[in-house]
């Protein structure tokens, strides 16, 4: 399971988390809410499976990075928002899966 990272990152290797998720929850065709998406690293791994993703992150700079990187990847089923989980309490959008990834 070893790897060399460049640039260094304290996140799991690409694909590892999605493989683990899929053992328990089929993400295919699901509407997903991701809380604490950061620069969209995991968002972009999930996007090919999901019907749609709303990805929330409190840091506007990271949302800007996420938006740019995701557009560069040609991904179109993701909407990024600046905010936190509390901001979504009144949201009427029904999600199939809520994902909190490294968002402590």
């Amino acid at each position, binding site marked *: *399971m*070893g*790897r*060399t*990272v460049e640039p*260094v*990152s*304290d996140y*799991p*290797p690409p694909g*590892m*988390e999605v493989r*683990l*998720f899929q*053992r*328990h*929850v089929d993400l295919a065709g699901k509407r997903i*809410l991701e809380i604490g998406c950061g620069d969209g690293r995991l968002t972009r791994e999930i996007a090919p499976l999901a019907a749609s993703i709303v990805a929330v992150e409190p840091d506007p700079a990271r949302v800007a990075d996420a938006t740019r990187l995701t557009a560069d990847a040609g991904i179109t089923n993701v909407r990024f928002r600046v905010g936190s989980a509390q901001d979504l309490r009144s949201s009427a959008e*029904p*999600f*199939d*899966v*809520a*994902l*909190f*990834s*490294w*968002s*402590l």
Partner: protein
Amino acid sequence: MKRNGHVILVQPHQQRRPDVAIATRTSRHPVAALINPVFQPLIDNAVASIRTVVDERRFTPVSTSNHQFRVQLPNTHQMDAYFRGGIRPPRFPPGGRRRLHEMWKARAEGAQIEITEHMTLVVMKAGPAD
């Protein structure tokens, strides 16, 4: 959230912080288990919150599993950069960094610094058990 929808949480392991070792293709020498007193209350609170929503029957546990992954870094500078990349980086316990530098000076050819990270995956389903 839809009824019977799922919540997935990926987070650092509640007790285990990163382990540092010096490794080659054929050997692995543990250096230290890092500590993170700043981070610990946060992960403890997160675990307590999960327990609360389960106790209140707002969510039903599906699975909790622990996993690890390893990162190899070429030198101590890269190791420091790796940890500084986190919001609340861990640190060595007393004497740990000195031990690292002593072991690093005496390393075998081709050795790298190997970080083992520990994570927990929690999956819950919305609502009480059927």
